[in-house]
């Protein structure tokens, strides 16, 4: 117990001293996960909405796959992205393996299905409520998607953050495709795994605390923004 509190104090010290190594790791983590969330949202918000609104052959299969992919094991995603990006893989020539870009790709693969599946459900519910009214007002199917995405914007923000939560906390995939290289691809989760295995509990704990704090800060910021926007627009 004493060891634990000592480690806790040292961790707090590292954070308060703005330790350079620590800041580097935190910055890279945020860069990778936020970029992945941005890219995944650009793909998944329209994809989820389209799956909710448009009927086409094989839609059921796509939805079933999407729901299955929501629970993809990160190590499997890491392995597949690794194989694609490795020298002998189809995209090996791009030389992306063990770079932050590879980590972003892996995270996009992990969170895009989550955001798309949640978006589909959100838009489906909104469509149930609004479809008849929008149709009667004269909305075409093409304009309905934009209207419903905007109508559900507050719920969609929550969906996107479910994706962010998964991305920032994920370790298996980024470890495989990033390689946990110091000053290059080391992020918070891979560093925690490494430092724990080395026995450097202080750094691991400091990173763990920052990870939780960051999630708290980002979530609170988004919730406040959402609340403010709701007040303005409603």
């Amino acid at each position, binding site marked *: 117990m004493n060891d634990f509190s000592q480690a806790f104090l040292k961790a707090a010290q590292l954070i308060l001293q703005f330790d350079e190594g620590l800041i580097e790791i935190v910055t890279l983590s945020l860069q990778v996960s936020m970029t992945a969330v941005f890219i995944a949202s650009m793909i998944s918000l329209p994809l989820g909405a389209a799956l909710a609104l448009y009927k086409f052959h094989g839609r059921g299969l796509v939805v079933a796959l999407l729901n299955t992919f929501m629970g993809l094991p990160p190590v499997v995603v890491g392995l597949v992205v690794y194989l694609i990006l490795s020298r002998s893989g189809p995209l090996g020539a791009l030389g992306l393996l063990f770079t932050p870009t590879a980590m972003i790709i892996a995270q996009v693969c992990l969170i895009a299905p989550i955001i798309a599946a949640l978006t589909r459900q959100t838009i489906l519910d909104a469509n149930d409520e609004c479809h008849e*009214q929008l149709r009667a*007002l*004269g909305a*075409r199917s093409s304009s309905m998607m934009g*209207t419903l995405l905007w109508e559900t914007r507050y719920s969609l923000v929550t969906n996107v953050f479910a994706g962010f939560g998964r991305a920032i906390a994920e370790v298996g995939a980024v470890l495989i495709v990033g390689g946990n290289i110091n000053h290059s691809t080391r992020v918070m989760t891979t560093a925690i795994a490494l430092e724990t295995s080395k026995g450097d509990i202080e750094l691991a704990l400091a990173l763990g605390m920052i990870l939780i704090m960051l999630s708290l800060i980002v979530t609170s910021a988004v919730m406040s923004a959402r609340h403010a926007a709701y007040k303005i*627009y*409603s």
Partner: protein
Amino acid sequence: MQPAPVLPLEIQHLSFARQGKPLLDNVNTIIESVGITIILGPNGAGKSLLLRIAHGLDLPDHGSLKWNKHIPQPRDSWRTFVFQKPVFLQRNVQANLEYVLSLHKTAKTEHDALIREALQHTGLVELAVRSARTLSGGEQQRLNIARAWILKPKVMLLDEPTAELDPSGVATIEMLIKTIAQQNTKIIMSTHSLDQAKRLAHEVLFLHQGKLIEHTPANVFFAQPKTRLAEDFIAGKLLNRI
């Protein structure tokens, strides 16, 4: 060039069934008068369904319904539809009105003037920036009508617009409907309220169990109903199955 007239509304052999149950059964009539046409009948008569088909929201199984030879599409901007229970976007009152103008590609420069006019017309000026979903039932129905009226339609279809309102709310909406009708917008409205039909109707379509029982001028319908069913309905009796 004069815009094409939208009347007459010709309904020929119109039938609509769901799960083998006829909801509209061989309805034939022509609506050609201006003013307020009330579709009257007890619950389940097929009033709302007839209005929905008239707006193009549902397609008949048999027969046809045409506005001056034109098959209705919901996006025709000369005709609008008012639901009994409106759904508003999560925006304020004026943004809900602006949405309709955008849908129908009204020139942006005209938006402010049209919105102001619609708000004044329906007494909603002071609620312009309130969230539409936080309005009271009566205010929501006024906004519902403002949203349908803002396009200056030639025809407004209203599906029991006062069914959920208190007497003062009913009076306000009826006054609005009368004013709109006086401005040369054809009103076709469904109701199950005999009193409301007496207050508003210029002509009555009386429906029962999906069949058109009578289509007559209002004064004739209330003074000298032609059928036993209409007589019973006016007398407040329970109607027999046909």
